[in-house]
């Protein structure tokens, strides 16, 4: 039996290849796909570079906040004890932080220095030494960055190419397809794209934005299909079935489409808005608008123009209309006279940042805790239950309001970005992780009892890898579903807070504040101010729920198979006794 399959052992193993070699063997499809990707990248290079710059500054902010923690704790300890303690405690905590980062780096690195050198020490000591060495290097770098001009130089050098790139024109730029101009006395338009009317120019740009987003997604999918047909070694994986099931789930597809539109709106907010938020909302008195008045082209500040185009019941600039300054307002104006679509598009950014931060961070905490508590059980579990119950026992609305007021009033550094948007995301993460943890606790306890977890232990797999490879994939589906459902909740919650005048402060655009501002005009000609953002909120939240539904149905069928009954005592069948 053991020698029955020997016919092909003799030949060299041609299938023994890694992806790189398989691509080198048959580069056609891969090159085709890469060429398409390069074209797509080139079209929007400036904007993508802009996103990277934005991401970089967000990471920089996060690093600054985290790096400030040891000093802050040190300061508190110094206040309570002796002043000199500030330096000791602060530096010790900084080193501890760096050690944590070093451990992460060592864990992620594909090779380990400990394998190269052999002092005859035990592997555990070697690993510790390696981490300590990386910590020392990191500490030296940190000192170099903070106390010498090197830091500033490096930062400028790193940012420079992206700054340069982000100034490149893209096909969806206002400069390329402009919808801002003024009528000419002759009846045409001056300053718009090809002399078209602003409405048409804006329409073309918006179509380009969403078209580009769809093509981008289609191209990624195409890439996956090329990989599947040409480069993947398995002819089938469970993921194929998941995709197939999702494809025929129309409610989920509806959710996906709306969510994609929502994300595209947030990412391309400047292109979707008829006017950039900077000019229309943040500093309207620094920019000017040209318009035709009595046959003459006149100029005024945008701020002044806004004052005349308010939608406040008496005066209305409704959807799909021009205001008296010849500005195209696809969704009308706000009670302040600002452009409504600009508010909505940038408000989508705010909602997306808050939602992703809250669900991303909260979900991360929930998954980590559920894996740890399910694997180790015992005291870790009890402590987590106590912590989560303490948070759950306070009404969520009250807790969020309390925390946001405290941080806002204290002018905490976290309350600065997005006028409190980031702070709100963090607060939501803190308030929502216990709920998410509770919902995935059952599945994770169940998967921790599977025999393959025991099997992994029996051949010495580390707990961290066991959790990652053998447990996390089984709860990923659950957390995706709960996350997408909660994301809608977070958007509503944010809107509700802004409606109450808490949450996101002006001038950062936010949907809930639009509803709040427009609620008194619902029965007037300015009905659109509260109604449109309200409908958009409903649509987006519904879409996230639909997407969650679709994901669950696509992932679920395997959950039914996970009914393994693992009993320690080997209860299998009746023995010889009775």
């Amino acid at each position, binding site marked *: *039996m*053991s020698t*029955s*399959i*020997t016919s*092909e*052992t003799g030949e060299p*193993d041609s*299938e*023994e290849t890694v992806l790189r070699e398989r691509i080198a063997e048959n580069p056609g499809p891969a090159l085709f796909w890469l060429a398409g990707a390069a074209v797509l990248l080139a079209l929007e290079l400036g904007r993508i570079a802009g996103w990277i710059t934005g991401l970089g500054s967000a990471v920089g902010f996060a690093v600054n906040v985290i790096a400030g923690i040891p000093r802050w704790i040190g300061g508190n300890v110094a206040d309570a004890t002796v002043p000199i303690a500030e330096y000791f405690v602060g530096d010790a905590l900084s080193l501890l932080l760096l050690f944590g980062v070093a451990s992460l780096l060592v864990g992620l690195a594909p090779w380990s220095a400990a394998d190269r050198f052999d002092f005859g020490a*035990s*592997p*555990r000591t070697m690993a510790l030494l390696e981490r300590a060495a990386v910590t020392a290097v990191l500490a030296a770098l940190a000192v170099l960055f903070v106390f010498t001009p090197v830091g500033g130089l490096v930062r400028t050098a790193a940012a420079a190419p992206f700054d340069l790139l982000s100034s490149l024109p893209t096909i969806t730029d206002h400069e390329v397809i402009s919808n801002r101009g003024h009528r000419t006395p002759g009846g045409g338009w001056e300053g718009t794209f090809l002399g078209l009317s602003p409405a048409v120019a804006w329409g073309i740009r918006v179509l380009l934005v969403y078209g580009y987003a769809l093509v981008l997604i289609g191209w990624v999918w195409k890439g996956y299909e090329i990989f599947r047909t040409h480069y993947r*070694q*398995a*002819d*089938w*994986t*469970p993921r194929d079935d998941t995709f197939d099931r999702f494809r025929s789930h129309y409610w989920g597809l509806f959710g996906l489409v709306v969510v994609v539109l929502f994300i595209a709106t947030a990412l391309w907010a400047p292109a979707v808005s008829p006017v950039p938020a900077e000019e229309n909302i943040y500093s309207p008195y620094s920019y000017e608008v040209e318009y035709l008045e009595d046959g003459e082209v006149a100029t005024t500040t945008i701020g002044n123009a806004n004052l005349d185009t308010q939608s406040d019941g008496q005066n209305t600039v409704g959807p799909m209309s021009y205001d008296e300054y010849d500005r195209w307002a696809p969704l009308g104006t706000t009670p302040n006279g600002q452009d409504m679509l600009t508010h909505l598009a940038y408000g989508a950014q705010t909602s997306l940042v808050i939602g992703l931060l809250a669900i991303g961070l909260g979900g991360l905490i929930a998954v980590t805790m559920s894996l740890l508590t399910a694997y180790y059980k*015992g005291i870790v579990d009890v402590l987590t239950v106590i912590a989560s119950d303490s948070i759950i026992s306070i009404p969520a609305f009250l807790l969020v309001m309390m925390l946001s007021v405290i941080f806002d009033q204290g002018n905490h550094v976290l309350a600065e970005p997005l006028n409190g948007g980031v702070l709100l995301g963090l607060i939501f993460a803190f308030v929502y992780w216990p709920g998410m943890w509770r919902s995935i606790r059952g599945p994770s306890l169940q998967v921790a009892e*599977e*025999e*393959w977890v*025991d*099997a*992994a*232990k*029996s*051949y*010495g*797999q*580390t707990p961290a*890898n066991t959790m990652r*490879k*053998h447990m996390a*994939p*089984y709860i990923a589906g659950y957390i995706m579903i709960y996350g997408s459902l909660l994301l809608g909740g977070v958007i509503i919650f944010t809107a509700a807070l802004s409606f109450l005048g808490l949450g996101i402060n002006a001038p950062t655009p936010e949907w809930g504040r639009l509803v709040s501002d427009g609620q008194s005009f619902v029965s007037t000609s300015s009905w659109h101010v509260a109604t449109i953002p309200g409908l958009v909120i409903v649509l987006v939240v519904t879409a996230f729920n639909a997407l969650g539904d679709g994901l669950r149905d696509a992932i679920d069928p*395997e959950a039914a*198979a996970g009914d*393994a*009954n*693992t009993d*320690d*005592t*080997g*209860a*299998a*069948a*009746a*023995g*010889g*006794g*009775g």
Partner: protein
Amino acid sequence: MSQQTIHSDADVSTDSDEDAMISVRNLKTYYDEGGLLGGTPVKAVDDVSFDIRSGETLGLVGESGCGKTTLGRTLLQLEEATAGDVLFDGVDVTKLDGSELQEWRRNAQMVFQDPESSLNDRMTIGEIVREPLDVHDWKTPRERRQRVKELLATVGLQREHYYRYPHQFSGGQRQRISIARTLSLEPDFVVLDEPVSALDVSVQAEIINLLEDLQAEFGLTYLFIAHDLSVVRHICDRVAVMYLGNVMEIGPTEELFANPSNPYTHSLLSAIPEPDPTSDRERITLHGTPPNPRYPPSGCPFSTRCPTRIRPEEFRALDDELWTRLNALKNTLSERKRAELSVRERVRAAVGKDTRFGSIEELYDDLFGDLEVPPDVQSALDEIETHARNRDEDEALAVYHDAFGSVCEAETPEYYSTGDGEHRSYCHRHDEGYRSPGAVLDRRHR
């Protein structure tokens, strides 16, 4: 039958240690519920000692819940031993930790009972079989893939199954995958935890043959945990019989099957269906269920159900049926003793109403109502009844033991060597002065 006592466990170890690969000494594995106040632990494995020799297959049989799986898992350090040693080539592996334990795990692997649950459905067969190699950083990734494919061929699968997923395979094939994973690190010792009990009978034979082939090819040592005695008889060199966390009997397979010593082994073997219709062998039916391993009986663990329990001299002549009833009385009393009465039940008992256990009168009526009870037994029963009615179960049990108890409940037995030196049995009946279990069974059950 030559019978001699082996007086201490120290003697046991010197007895047969020469070519032992694994020596288990006084191993105990207790499960705590993790209660803050301690509480009584479940004694899943309770003081077990035996050896496994290099290259042999040791069978471990017993009914469900007797602790055989726990014993196997403890040997592999999947459960923490409460006490005792597991010497693996002279190293006590229960004391290993960290990287030493990690390194040792290469040598000892396990095949799990349920192939549906022991393979991670989200990984390809290749990833599953490769994982132990990855964990131990075995050579280069390319060599690992090569080895996995060879292993798949070795266990009778196709090399191109590497990229398939577990649920594309049948139970028998999945068990082959599981065996391939077990072999990947070239272990010396493999625990087979009921490897075929979840499979179809036709597939069972294939897997058993595969396991035997692999043992011959790679010189493996097996601990074969099973409850299917015919499979055990087929594959094992020696067999250990477990009951309630104790090894009742251990010996060479053929001798143990043909000539069992321990009464528990007798009853276990009598449960094998006999294909011969003219056979006059009678099945020995054990009464009751195994005791709760949290509260094992005093003395011999099998004493509560033993068909050959030693009876006190003066009651030799009593009817077997009456003994059964007496035994039931004792078990009920022990249960009542352990049961916590709620406040409500205490009140009900105080005002003379029935508790959930019913009254002693009813119990007596149930047990002895339809039997002739000799006067000397009756007087003891009356005394027990008096104490029991006063809810003084301790005293009632003391009276019971005075009257009907014997060495079986009073003392833990020794391991007696029966047959050639390797065959050992855990029963008082092998002592001089008692008749052997076989003889007693012949008298009581034939």
